[in-house]
């Protein structure tokens, strides 16, 4: 029922490339998946080891070294491989530290959205009837709404703190999990092995934990990867609008915003964090697509 409404069909469903040689796919994908996962791993490593990797303190200002172009020898006698910003802070160090904000908020938001969405999807799938209808109606309504406006509203009200950002970004993504889990539960529920557990007196919790969850785990992993890319971009967008983690903590979106006024004279301030953000977003979402093809080709038709 709900899934027949075009307003809410997951956009990816119709976007999936339909006709390509399946054999060639299978051979090619694992290497790409490994590369994608490797990239995320590298990023995590950079974020964790930021104090070791960053050449300078990311919030240390230097009036003499303001707006320096990428250089080996700045006016302050230091190397600034990606230049300095309007306060003389080293852009490379800030990009490195900025990965922390992106990844910590991205992963936390995916966790929040994943738990909430999976719970809602399982509840809708198992209960059917009114609970199901209510959950799916809320999901449809959320999709009918430019969510960024709601996010801006809530953050403007509650203030841009870390927990608020995680919850708001997490909430923005629960629908994908809920829709896909619901449809999978509906299929699994009528399968004989689930029915026979029921008949043998197995509890609902047992059915969910031991039989349904393992069956839907690969779908969850795929959605979570795609959601991670979306969460990172949404966090950066909110930071760009001044509603993310507040200065002086460096975040990629915030850096793009800070450099905007100096675009004409000091293009490097906005461009480098923006490019890193763009590459991260592209690699993570492509990895999600590849994972989907490898782990769970049925999702494409979902």
């Amino acid at each position, binding site marked *: 029922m709900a899934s*027949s*409404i*075009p*307003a809410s*069909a997951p*956009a990816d469903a*119709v*976007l*999936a*490339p*339909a*006709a390509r040689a399946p054999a060639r796919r299978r051979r090619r994908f694992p290497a790409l998946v490994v590369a994608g996962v490797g990239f995320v791993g590298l990023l995590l490593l950079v974020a964790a080891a930021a104090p070791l990797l960053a050449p300078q303190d990311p919030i240390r200002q230097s009036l003499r070294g303001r707006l320096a172009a990428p250089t080996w020898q700045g006016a302050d006698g230091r190397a600034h491989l990606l230049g300095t910003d309007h306060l003389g802070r080293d852009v490379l160090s800030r990009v490195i530290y900025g990965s922390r904000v992106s990844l910590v908020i991205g992963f936390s938001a995916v966790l929040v959205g994943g738990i909430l969405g999976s719970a809602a999807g399982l509840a809708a799938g198992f209960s059917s009837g009114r609970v199901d209808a209510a959950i799916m*109606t*809320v999901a*449809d*309504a959320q*999709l*009918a*709404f*430019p*969510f*960024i*406006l*709601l996010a*801006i*509203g*809530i953050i*403007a*009200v*509650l203030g841009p703190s870390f927990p608020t950002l995680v919850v708001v970004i997490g909430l923005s993504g629960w629908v994908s999990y809920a829709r896909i889990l619901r449809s999978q539960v509906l299929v699994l529920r009528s399968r004989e092995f689930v029915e026979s557990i029921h008949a043998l007196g197995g509890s609902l919790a047992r059915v969910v934990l031991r039989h349904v969850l393992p069956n839907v785990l690969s779908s969850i992993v795929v959605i979570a990867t795609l959601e991670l*890319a979306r969460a990172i*971009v949404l966090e*950066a*967008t909110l930071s*760009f*609008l001044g509603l993310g983690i507040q200065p002086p903590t460096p975040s990629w*979106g915030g850096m*793009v915003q800070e450099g*905007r006024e100096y*675009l*004409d004279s000091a*293009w490097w301030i*906005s*461009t480098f964090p*923006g490019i890193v*953000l*763009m590459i991260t*977003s*592209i690699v993570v*979402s*492509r990895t999600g697509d590849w994972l989907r093809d490898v782990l769970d080709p049925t999702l494409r038709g979902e």
Partner: protein
Amino acid sequence: MRGFVPFLGHRLFRALIALWLVSTVVFVVMRLSGDPVPLLLPPDAPHSEIMRVRRDLGLDKPLPVQYVIFLSNLARGDFGRSIHFREPAFDVVRGYLAATLELGLTAFFLAALIAVPIGLFSAMRRNTLVDHAAMGLALIGQSAPTFFLGILFILLLSLKADLFPTSGRGDWRNLVLPALTLGAFTMASIARLTRSAVLEVLGADYIRTARAKGVSEMWVVAKHTLKNAAIPIVTITGLQFGTLLGGAVVTETVFSWPGIGRLAVQSIYNRDYAVVQCTVFLAALMFVVINFFVDLIYGVLDPRIRAG
């Protein structure tokens, strides 16, 4: 036409529920955001004055009463008065609506006009260099953050190449960069979709039959392929329009475009409830109406869908 009327009735019902939920969420969020009255008055305003303004705005009533008044006003098309502009919220929003529609429609048609031929061409020249390049660009367009794309366009095409102005609204030159920024995601999605839809149709038996009959390649593509690939293209196109409305918030901020997206953001900072409600409600309404028409076109293109 059996089943078409109930089909539409069901869609209409769900659309109304979605609108109701959206407006309720807006009401709750905006009321949580604190008292707007101190923002309206000078800091040394006497208490009696504050109370008078609160009463004028209906903010002294209990929340459930405010909610009922809010819903019944909404049903009559009354969105309340803007406390910032001091005129009816709908009039304020209407003043900004034209700019957003201009930007949104340009972005949308630009995207469709560029993307459908690219997708078609990619499908017919499948696995060539052109195909790979086009689809590679499409993937970037789908994942690139809108705000950064806008910044890149400003940097490269405006500041460096000096082809277009950096911001504001004026003649067509002002429109190009915001429309490209806003339309990038849509363009990429439609191009990829058109390619896969056409590829799927090209592999079908009736296309082989048409070719075997000696029908020209042009005609095969024009008549058979595009018509059958139209259903997914129309669907995604309708969905994309909603994405465009959300994207307008960011694009309008980047390019200082005087539309409702930027108005909504500023009104949130001003705690101008009425204007925010009105913008969000209109945006949701547009989305719902567009999808309603997408459903209609759907039913015409493929009668099987009505049964579902």
